[in-house]
């Protein structure tokens, strides 16, 4: 039962007030994409033991989608940030580096 703080309204929301949305920072592939790229977009997902970036929606609150940087092992939350971005903000990446030196996730690290 996680608590994630919604970066829009500041509410420390109970997991039951949120809906999960899977992996964050996917790039939409569409017409013109080859089969491998499109397959990756639709079906290939990270399943890390450790640092992970996820999408959540504050469904029972302000209704906004946001991202959470979280450790899948300890459930430590490194930070939450708005969804209108294509990569995790630097302050959160720095925080992860301080706590999990040598981490990497897809192209980030």
């Amino acid at each position, binding site marked *: *039962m*996680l*608590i994630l703080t919604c970066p829009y309204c500041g509410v420390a929301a*109970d997991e039951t007030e949120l809906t999960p*949305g899977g992996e964050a920072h996917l790039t*939409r*592939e*569409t*017409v*013109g*994409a080859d*089969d491998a790229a*499109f397959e990756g*977009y*639709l079906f290939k997902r990270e399943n890390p033991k450790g640092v992970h970036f996820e*999408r959540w*929606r504050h*469904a029972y609150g302000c*209704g*906004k*989608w946001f991202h959470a940087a979280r*450790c899948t092992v*300890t*459930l*430590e*939350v490194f930070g939450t940030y708005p*969804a*209108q971005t294509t990569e995790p903000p630097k302050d959160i990446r720095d925080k992860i580096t301080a*706590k999990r030196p040598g981490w990497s996730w897809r192209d980030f690290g």
Partner: protein
Amino acid sequence: MSTRLARDGRFLNKSKAIKFTFNGKQLRGFEGDTLASALLANGQTLVGRSFKYHRPRGVVASGAEEPNALVNLGAEGRFEPNARATTTEVFEGLKAASQNHWPSLDFDVGAINARLARFLPAGFYYKMFIHPRPFWKYIYEPFIRQSAGLGKAPKARDADTYDHFYAHVDILIIGGGVAGLAAALTAGKSGARVLVIEQTAHWGGRAPVDGGTIDGLDPDEWVKKTLQALEKMKNIILGARMMGTGIYDHGYVLGYERLTDHTPDQDGPRHRLWRIRAKQIVTATGAIERPLSFAGNDVPGVMLASAIRDYVVNYAVSPGDRTVIVTNNDDAYRTALALKDAGLEVPAVVDARPEGGGALMQQVKDRGVRVLTGKGIAGVSGGKQVQGVKICAQAGEGAVLEEIPCDAVAMSGGWSPVVHLWSHCGGKLLWDQEKAHFHPDIGRAPTGADGEPFVIPAGAANGSMSLANVLAGGVAAGQMAVERAGLKPKRIATPEGDSVTEAPMQPVWMMPQGAGVKLRNKMWLDYQNDVKVSDVQLAAQEGFESVEHTKRYTTLGMATDQGKLSNINGLAVLSNALNADIPQVGTTTFRPPYTPISMGAIAGEARAELFQPIRKTPIHEWHDDNGAYWEPVGHWRRPYCYPRDGESHADAVNREVTNTRENLGLLDASTLGKIVVKGPDAGEFLDMLYTNMISTLKPGRCRYGLMCSENGFLIDDGVVARIDDDTFLCHTTTGGADRIHAHMEEWLQTEWWDWKVWTVNLTEQYAQIAVVGPNARKVLEKLGGMDVSKDTLPFMAWADGQIGGIDVRVYRISFSGELSYEIAVRAGQGRALWDALVEAGQEFGVMPYGTEALHVMRAEKGFIMIGDETDGTVIPQDLGLHWAISKKKDDYLGKRAHERSHMVDPDRWQLVGLETIDGSVIPDGAYAVAGGTNENGQRNVQGRVTSTYYSPTLKRGIAMGLVHNGPDRMGERLEFPKIDGTSVFAKIVDPVFYDKEGAKQDV
């Protein structure tokens, strides 16, 4: 035999007698008794039978760890199986019955299993019931089912109520013993929000029974004083009869409060499940005494030494006139002193340690009690009651040195901290060689959202065994919790605990240490599941090296007590058998709940009419008053049909269809989703969302659209109306309103966040009424207010105006194929408009129709329904909806997916109409078979039915289905086997059965 003592008990109110029954026999107890203490007071030492061998079982413990004294409580709506007698407070009229025996507790046929014990070793069920295979279903399974389980499952509906409570605190303290109270005092002084919970009805834990002094006071006095201080603090809430059930991620804890179990006549909820969020948690959960493994240690009358002390001191119960004490530590000597204080005999203390104990042993000796050191018990005489013990050398193989007659045996194998809650969320353990127990590894605590520890063990739960250490640990834990919660700790004077210094204990995992197989066969580890030392040794011998595997193989530590008494002893036996160290073998995983909790508490208020929300349209009441037969659609309730007197549902549906086609029908379509999409980029946005072109729609007009997921599969459909240049109103399916609004917001927020589009879900703002049939226009014209003629308001147009003086928006859309107006009106006016239409429609033959008539009419027209023709694997192309897929658009959600090889495969099943040869109705979900069989020997299939109805219009069964190459096979016959073994045959036809030209809707 056990009996009541003449003295007072700490918990007893002897002035208030209470009558209760056990197996139908009326017995007497006192206010303050538990069922276990009251049974013992009545000489009822035999309280149940064990699971496998149906061995006689007596009370062993005095608290939540009790494995044996499980009873059926109550009757009818208040029946509960597997209740622990040791945690059940007696009340007037309590009815208890023992479990797992037939025909009676005293004479049990199943006990024959005990005679067969050597044929029922560990893993017996796995070994026995595998071969021959066919025996499983008819012989083994019924046999196992009959003998499985302890208590009976309740049959009646639960007569009690339950609720939940969400509490947010800085510090939660679990356990109201002196460590917990010291922590509470410390935390409370800092001003933190503190909740302290205690699973029993009494505060203070073991200290008042075990003796010593706190700040020079008797522990009882100190507890009373401390409670008074805590009750004065407004920031502290004290909750007795509330168990810490489990600790979960991010400081989430479940607390299980038993409100009226002890006063069942009291009104109000029986249990309350507390859903607690705590910044810091102190687990002051105490310790549990371990049994000793000697032959016959399961005979009724053999109890934990601490439990006997509890019964004597707290409940004024004598376990028997003569109690032999067997121990490997000093603590058990306290039981000897308590018994002597009560005037009872202690024929001997059998101490396995060659040197014996320290100051406590001396005190006992000074009271004239015989102490045998370096000795153990080689056997217990008696069947349903202890009659004596056989003494042997602990170092030997069990040669009997002497026999001592006695009525009870008090055993103590040392103490295990209750580390369950610490461990639930990942807290790790350390093995203490000296005390022979696992205790929390403070360096590896459970961590929370910030990556920092959030659980702090205190007192005996942390491995502290002296009163001074317990109190100091409580204060330290309170301080640490305050600091970690981000508050400023206030210093308080640590209460000074003073107790007798104890000599070291000596681990004893088997008594005597060299016992042969005959004795080991009678040494019980797990009383509830009948697991013996020999079973665990056999498991190890057969290769079950992992403690988790051994648990499953032998059933050690399973069922309601989850091995609270047996786990460490079993683990030690396994380690010895594997020749490994105990920490190397490790423990099984501790999982919540700490002890079982009621299903009612989990459900809380969610039962009966509050089981789940029922969504009601503004016209719901009218439907109810007019005999609607309800159909659940998502959380909505919609009228399926409106049966009249004597009418079957099928008759009603046929009447409603016919009347709508011939006269006038009204449908409450309020549940349809209505989402406003507005902004300069709204058209482009909807072009992405729908497969067809929406941006070219003219204001004032409507267009049917399809939505697909990125996978290409159909997810929703509906009519879009363009309100003005910037604004669209999107209708969704009933079930799709919230989902599609969320879908829109997701794309706007996470992909196209620079697009200027706003959405609002207005589904509930409007009631929507479909006025359908040849007389539809007439009734609207009669009510008057706006021009609804074909010229002004043609098919697929909409207009704002008034009908009968009510502001409305009218859409000329049809899901039935008839002349149809869907009228949206403010929800608050919905009922008024409906009533007006019903009244004005009388002369035109108006009748309401339900969802089934709607389905029949749309199927007659060949209109698809999301959820019938689609199932998450169907693309629009499968349904012949190519016309609704724009070829002009560069992109839309699902477009790339529609290019995938599987989606353009010509072998995909496609939509057709199906007309039965004999006019009957094809069963729902029927498959069309093809030649040959698949690898499982089943007939190959070439299609399936997606919608099937009796058409009162065509007076025959009609259906739609997805069929291999269907559209190219018009006129072919397909066979649909039915479950009765016969088949129905159908001809492939066009899916539009009625008015293919659409002449009737466009008038």
